[in-house]
């Protein structure tokens, strides 16, 4: 026998309690990892190199306010802009759905070619989409999810716009950070609304990330004091403003995470207190046999740390495996796409569990350090 065997035998002496404690820590760590992953998913939009070159301009008053189509000519002349297209959110419901998990945008297909450069057409043909104003280009994820094929029709019921869309799938794209969207000819919106002079937003690609700030400033300045002032921002900033509409996700997940951590602390502290209180007499005997305070402290710490660590490993890696195998995009109708349990989140949960393991050992360890051998031997088992 060595010291580690001794610690392990002590830690595992009450199997039921060990199982319950490790399970509690595992579940708490799992919940913590899940909450942090959810927060990440909802607050940090996916990034790509191409996205850093894209800029979106919307009405300064509100995103719901349209912009005049005549702004196109002014924007095109701003130095640093490589391509620009109208970009209008349709917000339709697909088929009979009550909630649709992918967005539809009206764009100018020819201009759009120069903006979404990271995507590639994997089925059908881009030119087919350009040529047919009643067709659309669909993300591969959406195509797979609804088991559609090129040539099939997608029907959308308008919610913002008093019109419906019936679009033939002409092309399928893949390779963007979000392969779910549906893009169609902006002309359909123009014709249906009988106001070819309005767009939702302007979608642009700039020469380089370095010139993006100047381009944004130039766009804002170009329409200052006009009837439709704009607010230009990077694609990332634009997405973040959408996320903020979900509410203060960070505060919410932080609150729930704090409750989880607090509960986890109560579980480990009470378990360790009970486990050590039951063994006060034995610890007094160990002291009599010559074990010193710091050695007993190490035993208690190792036991507490071991239980918390075992729970953390189970909970964190179990959660990672679980979310890696579950098709969350399908389960949430596309609301959650990546739900990636990152090493950073796993490390954070591991550190929380380790700190709790140490904290929960403190009370019992101090009690044992203060205990005299004689008082400990008087303890009733």
């Amino acid at each position, binding site marked *: 026998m060595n*010291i580690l*065997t*001794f610690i392990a035998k*002590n830690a595992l002496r009450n199997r039921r309690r060990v199982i319950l404690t490790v399970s509690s820590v595992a579940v708490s760590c799992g919940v913590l990892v899940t909450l942090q992953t959810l927060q990440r998913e909802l607050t940090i939009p996916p990034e790509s190199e191409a996205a850093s070159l894209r800029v979106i301009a919307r009405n300064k008053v509100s995103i719901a306010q349209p912009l005049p189509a005549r702004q196109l000519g002014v924007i095109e002349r701003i130095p640093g802009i490589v391509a620009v297209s109208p970009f209008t959110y349709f917000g339709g419901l697909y088929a009979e759905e009550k909630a649709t998990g992918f967005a539809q945008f009206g764009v100018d297909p020819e201009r759009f070619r120069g903006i979404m450069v990271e995507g590639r057409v994997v089925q059908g043909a881009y030119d087919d989409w350009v040529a047919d104003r009643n067709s659309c280009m669909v993300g591969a994820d959406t195509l797979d999810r609804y088991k559609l094929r090129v040539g099939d029709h997608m029907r959308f019921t308008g919610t913002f716009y008093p019109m419906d869309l019936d679009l033939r799938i002409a092309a399928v794209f893949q390779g963007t950070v979000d392969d779910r969207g549906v893009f169609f000819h902006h002309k359909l919106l123009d014709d249906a609304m009988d106001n070819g002079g309005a767009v939702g937003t302007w979608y642009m690609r700039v020469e380089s990330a370095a010139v993006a700030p100047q381009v944004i400033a130039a766009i804002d300045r170009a329409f200052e004091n006009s009837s439709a002032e704009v607010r230009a921002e990077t694609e990332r900033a634009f997405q973040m403003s959408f996320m903020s509409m979900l509410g203060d996700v960070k505060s919410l997940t932080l609150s729930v995470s704090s409750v989880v951590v607090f509960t986890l602390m109560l579980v480990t502290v009470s378990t360790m207190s009970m486990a050590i209180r039951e063994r006060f007499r034995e610890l007094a005997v160990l*002291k009599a*046999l*010559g074990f010193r305070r710091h050695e007993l402290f190490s035993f208690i710490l190792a036991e507490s740390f071991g239980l918390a660590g075992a729970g953390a490993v189970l909970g964190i890696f179990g959660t990672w495996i679980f979310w890696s195998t579950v098709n969350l995009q399908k389960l949430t109708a596309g609301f959650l796409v990546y739900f990636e349990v990152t090493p950073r989140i796993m490390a954070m949960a591991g550190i929380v569990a380790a700190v709790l393991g140490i904290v929960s050992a403190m009370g019992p360890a101090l009690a044992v350090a203060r205990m*005299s051998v004689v008082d400990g031997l008087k303890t009733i088992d």
Partner: protein
Amino acid sequence: MAAEPIVQVRELSKIYRQGDLDVVALNGVSIDIFPREFVALMGPSGSGKSTLLHIVAGIDRATRGTVLVQGIDVAGLNESQLAEWRNQNVGFVFQTFNLIPVLTARENVELPLLLTRLNGSERRRQVETALQLVGLADRMHHRPDQLSGGQQQRVAIARALVTDPALVVADEPTGNLDAKSAADVLSILQALSRDSGKTVIMVTHDPKAAAYGTRSLHLEKGEIVA
């Protein structure tokens, strides 16, 4: 009997504070105990015999007086030094055996050796020797709940002996045993002082148990009376 005492107790007093009251457990006790002696400390409950044993063994502190064990002033050692001193010089036998229930007999006996620099095979050899000495070599892989009370106490004696201490202290070692097991345990303790050169100090209420010793000391109200 050697001329130099292994334990020298001088004017030893111990006063406990209980609420507003001072309770005198020991009052100016002075004794000498010599190597190879088997001393029985007797007296009624509350007479201070266990307190005296605890102070001599270094698990309690006196209020006044001195205790020298093998010439070392036990009161002068700090907590850490005292723990190391106990490990090397004192073997403990308790009334309730106090074995660790999740460890086998061999592992229980090995516990004090974990604090030494002995390697695994050296520890194993010493443990087996100690268990053979108490007649339990064939029970070394049994856990305490698989042993009788008498066997458990013999394992506890093996644990007390395994570091080869000069002094073995036993607090009511037969208090929880039947007559046969008690006789076995007392015979072992007797043999330790007689054959192995250990000094044994035993607290007991039982005159029959005390009869195994070479000397009896009687305490009443914290003082040696005989």
